[in-house]
C-alpha cells in the first residue's frame, strides 16, 4: 500500500507539471465561468494533448487512461485552472457524438469543441422533469426532412452563449415514457430559441431556461433512432467524469482555522469540547472522503471504470458543506449573518457557502436520488415501485386530478 504513482503515472505527472509550470500562471483565475480565459487556455491544452486525455487520438485526444485524466485534473487544480465552461461539451456532448454521429459530423464538430472554438451545452432537464429526467415533455414533430421542436428546458449551463446543444425531446406521446424520446443536436443560434438566465438563491445566474418555439432541426442532426433517445441520453450520462476533490465552500481546515480565531463561552472556540467534537467528526468525514477518492483512483489506475460508488463523494460532501457553513456562523455568533467581506471572517466564505449549500444538495442529483442510486446500483436493493413504465406517456398523471 502506498500513495505513490506507478512509474508510468509519475512520468506522466512530471510532464503535466512541466506543462503547467510553463503556461499555467497566466491563466490562473477564480472566475471559473469566464469563457474568454478558458478559450485561450483550451487551445494551449489541446495543442499539448491535454484537452481530452481519454479520447482516442483520431479525435484529437491522447488515447490516455482515466487515471491520467485524474492526475491532470489534480495538477491543474493547483493553478486554479478548472474552468467549467467546456466541461459539458467535452465531457458529455462530444462523447455522445462519438457514439452516434456520422464521420462527417465528427470531422466538423469535434475539433472546434476540443479547441474551445465552439461551446456546447446540454438540454435535458425540464421544469417537470428534474429527478425524473425521462419525464420530459418538449415535443419533437417530424416534418419532412426536419423536426419541429416546441417546449422548454431548464438548468442549462451556458445556454445563452453556447453554439450547439444536445437535446432530448419527446417524439411520441402515445408510447410508454422511456420509448417515446428522440435525441438531437441543435444549433443554438437558430431562430426559435430563447434563453433566459435563472437567478439562483445565491444571486448568481449560472443556469438558463431555454424556450423552443417552432425550432427546426434537420433530421441529419438526430442522434440514434427515432424513439431511442433514452438510450442515447444514458450514453451521455454515463460519461460524467469522476469528480476530484470536494464540493466547495469551507471544509475542515477552514472551520478549524475559524475556531482558532474565535472565542465562545469565555474561551477560545478551539478549546471548547463541543466545538472539538464537531471538528473531529468533520475531520473523520474529510479524511474518509479523501481516502475514498484514493481508493477510487487506485481502481482507475488498475483499469476500472468510474462506477456508482463515487456517488458518496458528492452526497457526503454536499451535506458536510451545509453543516460546516452553518456551524461556522454559529461560532461567529451575533455577527454570523454578516456577508460584507471586510466584516465577516475569511471574506464571508461561510456565509457564501451557506447560501450555496442547498444548490450542492440538488444540482447533479438530489440527496434523495443519490441515496437511491447507492441503494439500487451499489447495494442491489430493489427499485422503487414504478407506475410509469408501461402506460402511454400521455396518460401518466402529472398533477392532482390530472
Amino acid at each position: 500500500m502506498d500513495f505513490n504513482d506507478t512509474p508510468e503515472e509519475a512520468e506522466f505527472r512530471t510532464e503535466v507539471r512541466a506543462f503547467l509550470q510553463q503556461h499555467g500562471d497566466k491563466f490562473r483565475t477564480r472566475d471559473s465561468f469566464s469563457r474568454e480565459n478558458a478559450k485561450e487556455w483550451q487551445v494551449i491544452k489541446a495543442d499539448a494533448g491535454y484537452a481530452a486525455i481519454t479520447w482516442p487520438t483520431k479525435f484529437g485526444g491522447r488515447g490516455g487512461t482515466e487515471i491520467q485524466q485524474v492526475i491532470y485534473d489534480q495538477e491543474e487544480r493547483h493553478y486554479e485552472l478548472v474552468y467549467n465552461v467546456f466541461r459539458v461539451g467535452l465531457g458529455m456532448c462530444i462523447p455522445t457524438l462519438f457514439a452516434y454521429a456520422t464521420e462527417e459530423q465528427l470531422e466538423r464538430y469535434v475539433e472546434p469543441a476540443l479547441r474551445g472554438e465552439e461551446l456546447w451545452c446540454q438540454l435535458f432537464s425540464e421544469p417537470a422533469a428534474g429527478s425524473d429526467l425521462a419525464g420530459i415533455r418538449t415535443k419533437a414533430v417530424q416534418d419532412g426532412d426536419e423536426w419541429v421542436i416546441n417546449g422548454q428546458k431548464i438548468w442549462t449551463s451556458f445556454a445563452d452563449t453556447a453554439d450547439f446543444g444536445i437535446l432530448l425531446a419527446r417524439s411520441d406521446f402515445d408510447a410508454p415514457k422511456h420509448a417515446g424520446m428522440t435525441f438531437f443536436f441543435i444549433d443554438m443560434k437558430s431562430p426559435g430559441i430563447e434563453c433566459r438566465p435563472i437567478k439562483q438563491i445565491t444571486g448568481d445566474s449560472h443556469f438558463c431556461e431555454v424556450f423552443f418555439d417552432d425550432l427546426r432541426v434537420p433530421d441529419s442532426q438526430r442522434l440514434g433512432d427515432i424513439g431511442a433517445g433514452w438510450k442515447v441520453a444514458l450514453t451521455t450520462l454515463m460519461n460524467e467524469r469522476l469528480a476530484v476533490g470536494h464540493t466547495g465552500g469551507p471544509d475542515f481546515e477552514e472551520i478549524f482555522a475559524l475556531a482558532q480565531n474565535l472565542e465562545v463561552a469565555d474561551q477560545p472556540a478551539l478549546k471548547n469540547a463541543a466545538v472539538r467534537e464537531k471538528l473531529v467528526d468533520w475531520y473523520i468525514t474529510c479524511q474518509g472522503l479523501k481516502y475514498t477518492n484514493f481508493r477510487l483512483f487506485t481502481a482507475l489506475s488498475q483499469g476500472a471504470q468510474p462506477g456508482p460508488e463515487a456517488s458518496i463523494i458528492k452526497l457526503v460532501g454536499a451535506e458536510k458543506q451545509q453543516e460546516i457553513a452553518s456551524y461556522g456562523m454559529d461560532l461567529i455568533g451575533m455577527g454570523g449573518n454578516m456577508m460584507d467581506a471586510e466584516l465577516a471572517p475569511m471574506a464571508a466564505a461561510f456565509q457564501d457557502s451557506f447560501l450555496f449549500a442547498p444548490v450542492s444538495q440538488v444540482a447533479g442529483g438530489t440527496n434523495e436520488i443519490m441515496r437511491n442510486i447507492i441503494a439500487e446500483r451499489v447495494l442491489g436493493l430493489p427499485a422503487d415501485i414504478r407506475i410509469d413504465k408501461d402506460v402511454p406517456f400521455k396518460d401518466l398523471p402529472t398533477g392532482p386530478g390530472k
Partner: protein
Amino acid sequence: MNFDISEDAKAVANTAQDFLREHSPMTAIRRVFDKEIQYDAELWKSMAELGWLGAGIPEKYGGVEMGAEVLCVLAEEIGRVLAPVPFSTSVSLATSAICAHGSEAQKNDLLPKLAAGEVIGTFALAEGNGDPDASRIKAKVKNGRLSGKKYPVTDGSIADFAVVVARDEANEIGLYFCDLSTSGITSTPIETIDPSRNTVSFNFENAEVEPLGDAWLGWQSVQNLLDQAAIILAFEQLGGAQACLEMARDYAIERYAFGRPIGSFQAVKHKLANVYIASELARSNAYYGAWALGEYSTELSQAAATAHLSACKAFQLAARENIQTHGGMGITWEADCHMYFRRARTLGLEIGGPIFWQERLMSQLEQQALAG
C-alpha cells in the same frame, strides 16, 4: 389542565392571520429584497391601528396591554408570512426595554409613539462577532456622550432610536436611549445573508445619549431583555417553520415525478414527518415560554432558552427541508423558499447563537440541580 393559548389570544391570532394574508403576501417582502422599500410602512401603520404595536404597553402609556400570549401569537403570524416590519426589534426588544427600565418621562414620551407606530426602535448590543457577553461590550458613555461601534444592528436603517448597551465612566454596563437623528452617529449598511433585515453598523462618536431610567441596570437587565425577546422570537420562528412545512407539504402533493406525487415517496414523507416533529416539540416548548412570560415565572430564563433553541432547530430544519423538497425550484431566487432559509438562520443568531443559549440553559439546570 389548560395548556393552550387562551381563546382571546387565539382570536387575535386568527384576525392577524387573515389580515396579514391579505396585507402582507410574500410580494411584500420581495419588495424589500428588491430594495424597492426598506420595510412596509403602510403595514406598520395598520398594525399600530390594530393595537398590535401597543400589545405589550400599559394603557396609561397609550398601549392596549393585551398580555404576553398576544405578543407571542402576533409574532407567530408575522413569522409565518415574513412580514417586512421591525416587530422583533422595535416591539420585542426596544419597547420591552423601555417598559421595563425607562424612566417615567421616557415612558410617557416614547411608549405612546411606539404604540402609534410613530417611532421605531431597535436594540444595539453586538459589537461585531461573538455571542452576547458583558466582556464584549466596549462602547462607552462619558458625560452623556456615547462612543464606540455597534454592529450588526437589525432594522438599524429604519429605526428612529436605539436602546444601546454600553459602559459608563465606572465601567458598569447599562442601557442607554439614543435618538438616531442626533449628531455624531454614522450608520453604514451591512450586507447580511438576509437582505430584508435592514442591518447596519453604527459608529458613535460623542453621540448624545441618556440612561434608560435612573438606576444602573447592569448586564442582568440585558440578559432579561434577551430572555423575553427569545420567547417572542420563538413564536416568530415557529410561524416560519409552520409556513415552510405547509409549503413543502403542498408542493409534495402537487409536484409529480415518476407518474406520482413526490409526497408519496417515503424519502419525502419521512423528511416532512421529521419537520413536523421538530415543529411540534418547538411549539410545546414555546407555549411553556409564553406561560413563563405571562406569569413572570422564576423559570423564565430556562423556559426562554428552551423555547428559543427548540424553535431555532425547528425553523432551520423546516427551511432547509422545504428547499430540498422543492428541488431545483427551491434553489431559485423566484421561489419563496430561500427567504425563509435566510430568515431562519439569521433569527438563530441575532440575539446570540446556539452555543450561547445552550450554555445559558445548562447553567440554569446546574443551579437548579444544586438547589436540589
